[in-house]
């Protein structure tokens, strides 16, 4: 899932303080699961903003609501007229949602209420961990299921650097060395010799290096076109 965390209140206040009518707009999918931007968090931010406005003597109306997902147009349809009635929408969806809404909402300003952090998993309740970078060219079958792109601090493709230290990364003792994990895992699988294979240089163009990406699935497109 996409993991994010709420922006500091002061930063949010800086975005909304000149607005009169603010909607904190939650997304009840990925960012709700990480308790950053679902309906409940949207309500909390709205309450904090109202208190802040009171403290600052600013006349501001702040309301909140949420929809299932901010990344598909159909979910917006039933509420879009209402959303357009505000002069500022503080979206607590991930960056995808903020972009997506901004493209559709017309003259209303959309601001991000959260920082979109990474694609991650719930390692244990309350602990979210980055495990994928969305690079567009998956090699997990060659690395024992452990991603060096997302999990090596230097995104190295050919083994650990000199900073590996008893299984930990030189950037911090709490960070695992991805290549240490890869080697240990492949030892367990009995596939360590695969690492000796010489591979061609990686093509980074399916990732962000190739520019903004778009995926089309032809048979799902234009579903509502009439029969020819």
């Amino acid at each position: 899932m996409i993991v994010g965390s709420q922006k500091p209140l002061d930063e949010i206040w800086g975005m909304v303080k000149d607005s009169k009518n603010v909607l904190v707009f939650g997304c009840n999918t990925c960012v709700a699961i990480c308790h950053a931007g679902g309906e409940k968090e949207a309500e909390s931010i709205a309450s904090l903003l109202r208190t802040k406005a009171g403290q600052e003597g600013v006349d501001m109306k702040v309301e909140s609501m949420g929809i299932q997902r901010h990344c598909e147009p159909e979910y917006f349809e039933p509420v879009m007229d209402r959303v357009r009635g505000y002069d500022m929408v503080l979206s607590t969806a991930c960056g995808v949602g903020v972009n997506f809404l901004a493209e559709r909402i017309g003259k209303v300003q959309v601001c991000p209420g959260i920082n979109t952090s990474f694609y991650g998993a719930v390692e244990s309740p309350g602990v979210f961990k980055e495990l994928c970078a969305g690079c567009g060219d998956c090699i997990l079958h060659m690395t024992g299921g452990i991603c060096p792109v997302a999990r090596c601090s230097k995104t190295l493709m050919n083994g650990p650097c000199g900073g590996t230290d008893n299984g930990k990364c030189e950037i911090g003792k709490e960070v695992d060395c991805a290549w240490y994990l890869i080697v240990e895992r492949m030892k367990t699988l009995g596939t360590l010799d695969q690492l000796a294979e010489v591979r061609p240089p990686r093509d980074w163009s399916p990732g962000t290096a190739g520019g903004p990406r778009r995926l089309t699935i032809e048979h799902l497109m234009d579903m509502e076109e009439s029969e020819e």
Partner: protein
Amino acid sequence: MSEAKVKEKKEVAGTPEKTHFPPCRDACPVKTDIQNYVWLIGEGRNEDAFDIIRSVNPIASVCSLICHHPCEQQCRRCDVDKPVSIRHLKRFAIEQATEYRRSKRKAVPKTRGKSIGIIGSGPSGLTAANDLADLGYDVTIYEKGPDLGGMLSSAIPTYRLSREALREDIDDVLSKGVESVTNCNIGEDITMKELREKHDAVLVAVGLAESRSLPIPGVDGPGVLLAIPFLFNAAYGKPTGIGKRVLVIGGGNVAVDVARTALRLGAENVEMVCLESEEEMPAWDWEVEEADEEGIKVHHRWGPKGVSRDGDTVKGLDVVKVTSVFDESGRFNPKFDENQKQLIEADTIIITIGQMSNYDFLKGSSVERDERGLLKWDRATQMSSESGVFVSGEVVTGPGSAIAAAASGHRSARAIHLFLEGKDVAAGLQDEEIARIEKLPPDVACKVKSVPRNETELLDPKTRCREFIQIEIGYDEMTALKEARRCRSCGGGALVDQDKCMACLTCLRICPYDAPVVTNASYISPDRCQACGLCAPECPARAIRMFGYDVDSIRNEMSAYIGKVDPSRKEPVVAAFMCSKYALDKSVSLPSNIRPIQVHCASRIDTLDVLKAFEAGADGVAVVMCDSEGCRHPGVSRIVARRLRHIQGLVQPLGIANEAVGHLKATEGQDWTEGLGGIAAGIPVRGK
């Protein structure tokens, strides 16, 4: 796209309709929402509790004193320790709400233009009268005895049922505009034919008001009495003619009533004889125990053979040994050993072996009877063989409890209403089946803390059996609150809105009882949920509501809780979220800057509730909760403390210091007010 195909998820608010009945409610013949009213008693809301009770039970006061409480037998606390003392809680709430109930009495407009005559004013007749009056019918009750109430006023001894309590129930019903005619013998004072002409429908609810006798030698003559006339005379202070040594034949509840009444009338020795063994005896255990405490001996497994007389004077009862009472198929079929016999000496014998109805009043009507003399009636419509004449109560159910008769009264009232509306009675009486919550799963039961039941005291046996006074001493307020909190609120727990849930697993992770099961959405099993409420405030999609509790209520009313905040205040305004255990402690008075907010359990305090307190102008928040020993749910104090730390982080950018979000874990029986005062003293006034 012409029309939105994705619908906006509906806003969920308020309290949902219950989908499952807990076993207590399921066992109650009138399906009283016991969990709800016990919860309200635990919140100190006795008048609201009364409303819940009275909404289905027109003989609420009566039941609070004499109900055999099938609810308690089914209480899921039986799997942990002892059942919640539901009947005594009911009595407490009703007595506390006396003035309130009196203030609510008012006539219901008779809008239907139709009238109903009800023969009999016992539990079923009163209940039917109540319901039909509520529906706008003109109702008249015809009672044979001098007072309304049937057996309740003419037979149940006053040491069990005070007539003042009965009067409250009757006054509720009469206040709706129900007419009554007492000392009225149908067939003599007014005939069935006349009743049929006068009323659009008639309900026969005469109960089983006559005692059966025994066909044994010597039974006719002085010194042998029948139970119902004896109880009637005792109830009205008339001479009963009992001697010093009384023997009661029978092993049911009425027999125990008769024996204990004889004792109170001055008999020096009272004994009972019954066919059944101690275990088989049909009287309730507690009735037998109380009789035993009063010195009443029971001769088990002896059958009456004849009354032994010396001339007219009763010498005693000849009895033979009973070898078995029931046959292999469980039917009543007593067998005797004629070789074992004895004389049980007594000068008065009271026969209490069962009751029947006298249907002589039906002469001349077309209401038919079967070959055994019982009324013919249709179970599907509550109607007798004569159209427009309905039946209810023990006439149709056979001997049973007051509350079962009341349930029958409800059903008959519905039948009459359907009939007078020209609707299909049988179809209209079909009830929707509501699922019953199962027994407490063992792995949940082991997490439920054992809390001793608060037993009520009885008057001392030596003194109580010399007068007709209520022998049960009811709960005082603190005991009632304590006992109410023993309830596990089965069926009053969490409900996930499947439409809003996005299966994030938060509820599953936080639940101490492993109640949620998550597939494509979470489902919180009512069999397992203990209504702690920890899950609802944590749900990131706001998909969880609670049965019987509006999760939004506190934050919606926060401005009222906080009240006025003086801009020039010196003392901080503190929102004190208090577990009801402490909020209801009347020995405590809080300074005016501390604004109490009663919560059922700290588990239910939501981040939003706290943020709303600041929004409403509070300088700080203090949570008073039980320590882990005192809380009825595992893990609450730890989880709530963590929740509050999270809130400290949220409000810190507002310049609100960590000290302004405080909590204390109170220990039962120890002073916690000092701790609360300490938290308040450490909270700075905002903006100063």
